[in-house]
């Protein structure tokens, strides 16, 4: 969280066209404190508390971009970004194309994502599929504080609209040292979290830690890949790893059907078919609404479920 706040300070300092807007981002500094201090530092013109209307936030951001600004919109929770899907699909992802590439729409949409925080309903969704499937949009999801800073910087500097989803579990992660000052993690590059020769565990966001925990438990050598940038996707890194291990387990918190894990599986079924020594397995959330939190452990993929899938592959 400090990492996000740090990135915002650095990027607003660096480019006076960067403007932060959203519900409760100024006076309160954001319900997760991501925008704390920006109002005092950059003033009410560049850190704006908006009315309570998400589609209005993203819709006016399109106009702000037309006026030369680089809006960074905060959606208070991922589920409250649903009202702006209309603007996102109809305009944010299409407007550059609509000008034959003449105009840029450097809009960043930040939102917390995922469960595991014991909150009421609609505070724990993982809606990345809606964003990834939308043309003209780029999507990134960090799994470490450093990436949270670096990917946000990349998103803000990107000439294209980027949806940056910040896992809530990450907000609670222990302060880990994050590079000082300007720090950019380019979009489109996955991260090999740890190397291994026997099975590839592919994850992103909050599921990276789950994959790592599973890797710890496995006897076999597990390679853990953090996709990090869902769109554009770093196919190379994924294919190289599966080319080596021949086994892939994809971990996704979102509901299973048509989740982003399916795209990874489809990629492997198309480009790694000869490498695969067994089925491509997905460990995902169920095709149900995210449950009441007393049941959330049953829904969110656990290290045990990932281990089970990996062992099934290793024994295949």
């Amino acid at each position: 969280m400090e990492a996000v706040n740090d990135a915002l300070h650095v990027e607003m300092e660096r480019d006076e066209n960067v403007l932060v807007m959203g519900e409760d981002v100024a006076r309160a500094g954001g319900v997760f404190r991501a925008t704390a201090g920006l109002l005092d530092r950059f003033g009410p013109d560049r850190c704006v508390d908006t009315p309570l209307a998400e589609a209005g936030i993203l819709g006016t951001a399109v106009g702000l971009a037309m006026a030369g600004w680089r809006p960074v919109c905060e959606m208070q929770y991922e589920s409250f970004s649903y009202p702006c899907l209309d603007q996102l699909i109809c305009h944010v992802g299409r407007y550059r194309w609509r000008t034959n590439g003449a105009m840029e729409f450097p809009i960043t949409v930040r939102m917390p994502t995922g469960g595991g925080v014991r909150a009421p309903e609609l505070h724990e969704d993982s809606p990345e599929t809606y964003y990834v499937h939308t043309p003209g949009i780029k999507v990134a999801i960090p799994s470490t504080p450093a990436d949270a800073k670096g990917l946000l910087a990349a998103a803000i500097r990107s000439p294209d609209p980027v949806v940056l989803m910040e896992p809530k579990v990450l907000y609670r992660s222990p302060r880990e040292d994050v590079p000082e000052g300007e720090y950019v993690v380019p979009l489109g590059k996955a991260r090999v979290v740890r190397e291994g020769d026997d099975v590839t565990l592919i994850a992103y966001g909050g599921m990276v830690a789950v994959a790592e925990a599973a890797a710890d438990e496995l006897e076999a050598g597990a390679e853990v890949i953090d996709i990090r940038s869902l769109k554009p996707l770093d196919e190379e890194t994924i294919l190289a790893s599966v080319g080596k291990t021949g086994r892939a387990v994809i971990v996704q918190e979102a509901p299973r059907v048509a989740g982003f894990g399916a795209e990874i599986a489809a990629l492997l079924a198309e480009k790694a078919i000869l490498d695969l020594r067994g089925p491509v397995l997905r460990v995902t959330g169920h095709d149900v609404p995210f449950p009441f939190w007393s049941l959330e452990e049953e829904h969110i993929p656990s290290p045990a479920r990932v281990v089970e899938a990996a062992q099934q592959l290793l024994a295949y």
Partner: protein
Amino acid sequence: MAQVVPAEGDMRRVIGDGEARPDGEVEGLGEHELLELYRSMVLLRTYDERSVVYHRQGRIGTYAIFWGHEAMQAGAFHALEREDWIFPSYRESAIGLLRGMPVETVLAWWRGHPAGWWDPRAFGVASIAVPIATHVPHAVGFAWGKKLRGEPVCALAFFGDGATSEGAFHEGANFAAVMRAPVIFLCNNNGWAISTPVSAQTRARNLVDKAFGYGMPGIRVDGGDVLAVYEAAREAAARARAGEGPTFVEAVTYRCAPHATADDPSAYIDEERVAAERQNECVGRYERYLRRLGVLGDDLVATIAAEAQDAMRAGIAAAESLPEPDPELVTRHAYAE
């Protein structure tokens, strides 16, 4: 009479201040009804105060406090008939108690336990709406649907000042006016949407002015005056049942507690104003009114308080003795089985 807008600028009031402003009264309310209103307010107040304690004790999760909004909630509630439906936001999470919903059900909701869901038909209370304003069209559709069936039922939707900025509120309000749906839009203007003051939410003089744009009547009342809220809601319900369509009621309150247990208002709120509002809180105002009227005394106050305390004690005990939810439940109920 609900005036066709532009609505009156000042708020309607019934309860006096015990000094300059004399007490009024609401036609048709006898001693029994007056005390029922009081009981409801005390139950809500007790529920709210206990919940904040339960949260501190880690017995429930994050909780949306409604301290100071009891008059707005109870006043509107008592203007309804049993067949009428209520569409609450998270801010009215305990409104079902007034319809006999078990305390443990509401506590289970805040404990993240599936026993916190109920069948809306059982109480005429829809599920607690978490996404702002999105339940407004539900209330409108329900009311419209009942009207189509010729049933003299109306719906009441609770929402806040911030909710009026959402497209969902706008579309719902417009549908209601066009369909002449029997709906009461009860806007709890407590001055804040988390840290955003109503002055940063709209340029309208008053939220009730929005009614004009939908061609519906609007009433603005002191939301801390349970009798004024009751009278306004009753008037709106009468219009609804008479086939005259929706009414927008702006109940002016003040959020003199944090937005929720997770919130720290010190960064943005005026502590003095909060202190003043807490001084003038609605349950005390009504209690003093009833005492002036001579229908309430120390004994009854004590009895009613004790009843509420007992209900809460039993409720939390029941909630805490609920069995852990069956893990199987996680994959159920999304689709018909």
